[in-house]
């Protein structure tokens, strides 16, 4: 066997290193009780959302589906979580609602993370006018109250789930931009970014090859912590009338429960389950995200 | 007076709890400080000298184990109830911390930080903030300042004023001149010296710099890896140390007033040992240039040397004629 055969290409080296890092994260996560609980809960909700068509038929969400069922019926063998004010099964809506809530939460997070990381990376790396302009924009978005802004944008741009996700993403990136910027600044103080620049690498290369990998763990942990906020915002917007009643998210279910008077009618099966689902998923993301933060940033350990 | 020292420490062990397990920072230390006496305690950072200082008033983290005995003016510090301990702190022994940068509360005025101690231990002997500031050469106006408005030297004066405010018997000065520039260092040393003399105070003066001990201490103890390796009268020890570590430590700083030493500074090779995994035998043997085979297995106890009754050394060469004072 020749020597070349056992040599590992740089690319393979990188992948090996990444795999080892991932394994380390997994091992530490395994021992982080609250973080691991969060992960298990997330897996559960992920499975439910993915398997929604197997649990309940989508046609059960149609207004016509409840026509022959009793309105606001208490839980029974046929309707495990009772029915809503137009006779539709609450459980079916809950199961399908997990798709809507998780989809909007995740899409919004992607939008927020992309905007936030870009603004953070550039404003941290580029000095001068561009940097300070981005910083000023970031400051502005930190001050502007995000829910009223999201409301205004959603009213103007439309009420579909995708629009809601874009709007939520667009209103929740400022904090992570600030975080990424701080990390970039502290990375720049270490030598290797300077070195790469001195070797003649252009900004694009330095940012993508040297700065981004350094801030990536932080971005991932931060993203995990943006999701719960996005899900909460989605539920708030749905509660305030946005979203689609025929494909309801958990927040939309709460809106229906509130406006149908289920509270005064003691129809707890209508308003409790969606609320509990929101709390559980938000909690799960928060626990998981905080665990990632602890693993990636040992300074935070023991918090 | 010799019979009842202000501070009497016997067989003191201090063990921290860390995530890697217990860390022995102080390993069996005996100390005596008589009334009006100043003991200098020298060693590299990490040798356990600051831990020792903190343990004297039980100011170590909660999970830390302390064993042995500490008698402060005859009272046992380690067996005291918390209430009594609080009365002893500052009133019997106070501390001048190193680098007054962060040891003063940044959002409280200087005056009220000094006054806080006075109010806490008010008695017939209590003094006023103004008197204390005057004592350390600061103007009344400083009382209204915040720490960030003072220079490093001024802050250290404040610290000294605070330490004196409750008329303690003993002052523990933990690297009081580190982080100050040389001129200010000299002023602070002078100030401490004057006050000590005027008030007949006892002092434990902790430093990594042997040269600052030369003119203001009565006795000097040298610490290495949590133990005292040499102790003796200041003059004698500084002029001719017996333990190879003391010798190396003395040579790494120029001796004030000795131009020869200035031109031949000798550093000490290597780093102090990790308290988690101390070398076998004498913990200094990996860095020692006169170590013999037995040093790797036998740890010599601190014991009196034949040539001077006041001196104790923990080294196999302690009584070698060839290693004596040159």
């Amino acid at each position, binding site marked *: 066997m020749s020597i070349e055969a056992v040599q590992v290409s740089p690319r393979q080296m990188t992948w090996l290193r990444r795999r080892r890092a991932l394994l380390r994260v997994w091992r530490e996560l395994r021992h982080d009780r609250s973080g691991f609980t969060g992960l298990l809960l997330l897996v559960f909700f992920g499975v439910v959302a993915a398997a929604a068509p197997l649990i309940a038929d989508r046609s059960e969400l149609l207004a016509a589906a409840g026509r022959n069922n009793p309105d606001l019926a208490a839980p029974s063998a046929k309707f495990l979580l009772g029915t809503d004010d137009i006779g539709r099964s609450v459980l079916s809506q809950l199961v399908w609602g997990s798709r809507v809530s998780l989809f909007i939460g995740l899409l919004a997070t992607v939008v927020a993370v992309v905007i936030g990381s870009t603004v953070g990376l550039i404003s941290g790396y580029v000095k001068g006018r561009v940097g300070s302009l981005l910083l000023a924009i970031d400051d502005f978005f930190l001050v502007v109250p995000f829910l009223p802004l999201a409301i205004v944008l959603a009213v103007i741009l439309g009420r579909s789930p995708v629009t809601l996700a874009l709007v939520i993403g667009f209103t929740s990136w400022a904090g992570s931009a600030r975080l990424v910027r701080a990390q970039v600044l502290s990375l720049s103080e270490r030598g290797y970014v300077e070195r790469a620049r001195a070797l003649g690498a252009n900004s694009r290369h330095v940012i993508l090859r040297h700065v981004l990998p350094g801030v990536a763990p932080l971005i991932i942990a931060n993203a995990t912590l943006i999701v719960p906020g996005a899900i909460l915002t989605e*539920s708030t917007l749905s509660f305030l009338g946005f979203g689609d009643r025929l494909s309801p998210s958990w927040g939309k279910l709460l809106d229906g429960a509130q406006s149908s008077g289920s509270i005064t009618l003691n129809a707890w099966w209508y308003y409790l389950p969606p609320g509990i689902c929101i709390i559980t998923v938000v909690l799960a993301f928060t626990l998981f995200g905080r665990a990632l933060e602890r693993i990636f940033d040992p300074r935070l350990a023991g*918090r | 007076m010799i019979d009842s020292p202000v501070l009497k420490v016997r067989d003191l062990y201090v063990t921290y709890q860390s995530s890697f397990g217990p860390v022995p920072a102080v390993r069996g230390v005996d100390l005596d400080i008589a009334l009006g006496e100043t003991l200098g305690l020298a060693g590299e950072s990490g040798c356990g000298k600051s831990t020792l200082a903190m343990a004297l008033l039980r100011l170590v983290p909660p999970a830390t184990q302390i064993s042995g005995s500490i008698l402060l003016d005859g009272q046992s510090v380690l067996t005291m109830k918390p209430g009594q301990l609080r009365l002893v702190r500052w009133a019997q022994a106070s501390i001048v911390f190193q680098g007054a940068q962060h040891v003063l509360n940044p959002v409280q005025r200087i005056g009220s930080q000094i006054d806080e101690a006075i109010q806490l231990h008010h008695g017939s002997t209590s003094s006023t903030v103004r008197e204390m500031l005057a004592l350390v050469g600061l103007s009344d106006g400083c009382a209204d300042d*915040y720490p960030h408005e003072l220079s490093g030297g001024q802050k250290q004066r404040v610290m000294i004023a605070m330490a004196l405010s409750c008329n303690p018997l003993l002052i523990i000065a933990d690297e009081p001149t580190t982080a100050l520039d040389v001129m200010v260092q000299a002023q602070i040393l002078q100030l401490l010296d004057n006050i000590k003399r005027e008030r007949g105070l006892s002092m434990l003066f902790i430093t990594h710099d042997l040269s600052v001990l030369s003119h203001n201490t009565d006795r000097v103890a040298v610490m290495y890896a949590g133990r005292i390796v040499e102790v003796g009268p200041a003059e004698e020890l500084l002029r001719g140390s017996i333990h190879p570590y003391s010798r190396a430590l003395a040579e790494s700083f120029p001796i004030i007033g000795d131009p020869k030493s200035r031109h031949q500074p000798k550093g000490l090779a290597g780093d102090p040992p990790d308290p988690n995994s101390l070398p076998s035998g004498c913990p200094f043997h990996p860095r020692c240039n006169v170590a013999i085979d037995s040093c790797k297995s036998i740890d010599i106890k601190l014991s009196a040397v034949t040539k001077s009754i006041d001196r104790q050394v923990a080294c196999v060469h302690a009584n070698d004629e060839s290693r004596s004072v040159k």
Partner: protein
Amino acid sequence: MNFLYVTKKLLSAFLTLIAVVIFNFFLFRVVDRDPLAKYRGRSKLSIAQREIMIERLGLNGSKWQQFITYIKSTARLDFGRSFDSTRPVLREISDRLPATLLLVGISTILTILIGVYIGARAGWQRGSRFDRVSTSATMVLYATPEFFFGMLLLAFIAGRTGWFPTGGLRDVGADTSGFASILDRAHHLVLPSLTLTLGYLGSYSLIMRTSMLETLGEDYLTTARAKGLRDRDVMMRHAVPNALLPSVSFIAISFGFVIGGAITTETVFSYPGLGLATADAIRNTDLPMLQALFLVASSAVIIFNLLADLTYGLLDPRIGRAK
């Protein structure tokens, strides 16, 4: 705190306000291509009616002319008329502002006091029973949408016990003057302010706990202990005043969330303030109202941030204290 610091903060608040006003125009006139379409279905408008609406909304002329018109009317606090009630927007807002100020004011004070207390104690006694229980509880509080709290309070307290009214500002037909009316108003405020307080207690106490943990290792705490201070006094006199500093700015930033919380809380309790007005404006696509409400909400946050900056200046002697 000196004159320069105050001036700087005032100026920056003013500039942010200007930026919000400009941003507001951008949102409603540039992002929104056709505001008129949202006026209750355009088909019903005749050409003459359209002309009137364009005039009234300040939509005539180039974007630049529209901008000048907008700035002028905003400076006069003229926000046009509500699509829904057709009353002047300024009137609608000034009628409802006091109720919201009261609700948000009470809740913010309660949240800060309780949150700072819980966070400070949990951080100080890190790892203790109090810390474990309160941290778990605040995580759940944090994860709960505040309007869900409102629904639970309605269902289990107002509904089951009848101790508190289920909504509104005052009882119908009740005496509107004197002490009885104050009691009645207070009675109607209990559940909404409790909802809003519970909704944001979690984040405030987590913020304070983190700041407290960051001060734990500070040398001046060792100094205080060495002086012989009780643990309680070390915490209250030395740790808390320092830990409050970073918390002030974070709490100011979180105030934007409380504003959002007021919208849903008022909706749950039909509490006729600006929040309920916002919910109504959403359902009616009432652009003039939304535009003004957004301006009010942003101004509230800017003012609160300014107050926080000034408080910071008072708490931290290192900020701009000229020697």
